[in-house]
């Protein structure tokens, strides 16, 4: 079964009197356990596609199925539940809740999922160590560098081992060493836990890890390379 199926996705944006196609009839099927990179120039629709798959933004046309479940007709609350139980997100920017510490940010999703305090704390501290933030657990986002914040966001996205991780430019603020660490972590999760990854990036270092590389231009898929 495929983890994600998109059929005929269209998303239009109005900019002045111009209509822009964020997504222009996108068909895509991502296998379970896939490791897919979305590449393409800025403005090519990568973020728009991730948001549509995550149920954050409704496409104007087309249909999306996540883990065998069609999300087109789900309500806001149902979409929230779907994200909670299936998807880990890493956004391009503004990832963390400012009033919560790094640990609390990581715990947040597990808290919403209803895990016990001890489980949460253990899992949060483990994952923060894995992303190299040991000792910074109690810092608030404002007390962390951009790269550190991004790693907290990654930790939060993968801590509850979701079936699917959607990451938007996850390495944008990271030095190459940390970026490599992060990608190794992604690969490990992908291999060990069969977590499906869809990563939007224009970082060539990231693309090297991809099992499948898709190139988008103007909201269309122009290349689809399986390696």
């Amino acid at each position, binding site marked *: 079964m495929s983890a994600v199926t998109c059929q005929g996705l269209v998303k239009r944006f109005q900019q002045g009197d111009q209509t822009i196609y964020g997504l222009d009839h996108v068909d895509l099927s991502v296998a379970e356990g896939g490791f897919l990179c979305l590449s393409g120039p800025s403005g090519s629709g990568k973020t728009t596609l991730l948001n549509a798959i995550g149920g*954050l933004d409704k496409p104007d046309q087309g249909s999306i199925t996540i883990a065998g479940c069609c999300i087109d007709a789900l309500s806001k609350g149902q979409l*929230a539940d779907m994200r909670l139980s299936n998807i880990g*997100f890493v956004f391009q920017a503004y990832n963390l809740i400012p009033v919560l510490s790094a640990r609390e940010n990581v715990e947040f999703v597990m808290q919403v999922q209803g895990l016990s305090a001890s489980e949460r704390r253990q899992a949060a501290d483990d994952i923060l160590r894995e992303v190299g933030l040991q000792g910074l657990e109690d810092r608030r986002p404002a007390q962390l560098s951009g790269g550190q914040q991004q790693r907290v966001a990654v930790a939060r996205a993968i801590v509850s081992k979701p079936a699917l991780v959607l990451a938007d430019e996850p390495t944008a603020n990271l030095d190459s060493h940390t970026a490599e660490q992060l990608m190794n972590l992604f690969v490990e999760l992908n291999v060990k836990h069969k977590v499906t990854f869809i990563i939007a990036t224009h970082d060539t270092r990231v693309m090297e890890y991809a099992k499948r590389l898709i190139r988008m231009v103007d909201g269309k898929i122009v290349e689809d390379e399986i390696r």
Partner: protein
Amino acid sequence: MMPVSPFKLSGVLWVLAWRNLWRNYRRTLIMLTAIAVGVWAMIFLTAMMRGMVDDMVRGSTSTLLGHVQLHHPQYRDDPNIVNSMPPPSTSLQQALNSESVVAWTTRVRVPAVISSERETTGITLVGIDPESERPLSFIAHKITEGRYLESPNDRGVILGKRLVDKLETRLGKRVVLMSQDPDNNVVDRGFRVVGIYRSDPSMIEEQFAFVGRTTAQGFLHMGEQISEVEVLGSDYRQAKSLAVPLRQTANNETVPIEVLSWTEIDRYLGSMLPMMDGFVLVWIIVVFTALSFGLVNTLAMAVFERVREIGLMQALGMKPQAIMLQVLFESIFLLVIGLVIGNLSAWLTILPLQSGIDISVVAQGLEMGGMSSMLYPSLQIEDMILATVVVLLLGMGASLLPAWRAARLDPIKALTKH
């Protein structure tokens, strides 16, 4: 995995609400001050108004009204001597000596004419038992010249200062009291003025002349008959329930006896109490309405500033209801802290005023309404509870609007907002 109900999430929601509250601490402090001042104003003014009503009621109940009165059924229509009643029977005395009765006394109270050497005027003649009268009415405590009556057989009369002036008489002089006996014969008798009283309000001074009860019964040819029994309970608000057992006992008496609480005797004054309750509620709601604008605005601002975070939380799988709860929790924090400060400061400001506030500057006008020149604020726990409940419930109601708006935010718009 089972989706978690937003209520189980309340732990993290409370934490978020609390920390968010202090992000813009200046705005929070301003709002807290507004709520506290509003609540203070609700309670303080209510205590003042209650104090005024207390004063009016106490003034009246101590002016020969008491909490409960027993009379002949026709006495109130016609306080003539023929509408008198026998003194309380043994069973009635038993009821009158019960726990809930603080004091009781019997009186003769009939219309009469008083004459000095120079003037004649109509008054109400009140025959009292000086000892049992003491806790019930003002008279024992307001003698300014001469003495109080010594026994029911005392042969003197006590007059008000204004009546003494009107009659152009003075302490030690004799006056003549004239009335009717039960057979409609005119009876009169001379009394020496043994005491002069002052009262608040002073018009009372022209109305009542006090003599010994037995003396009055003798010269009016009444035998043992009396005009009324007056009963005092511990709280004027409880007068109605005080009357109930007395009425039951009185119904079994051989003669008909009417038992009424002060609210039934002085209906105008009695209506003050429910009217006050209405006023208090209206006042609380008016102040709240002013507050609610600030509250809704504060929350709306807080939501507006956090649009992105709210989007993020939704993107992470937090449901709209949970977002709504988070805003409501923030509102609860504001309201509860404001209420605690408001209630405390009201209590602390009223406490030192318990010994009374001198309002004699404005008292000239107020005395007409039956009030004295001292105001004793009356802090009622019920009023504090009412203010608290109204502010809390209506406050949460008003917060629903910004909370609902936050829940309806579109996560993607919120996240991409720059």
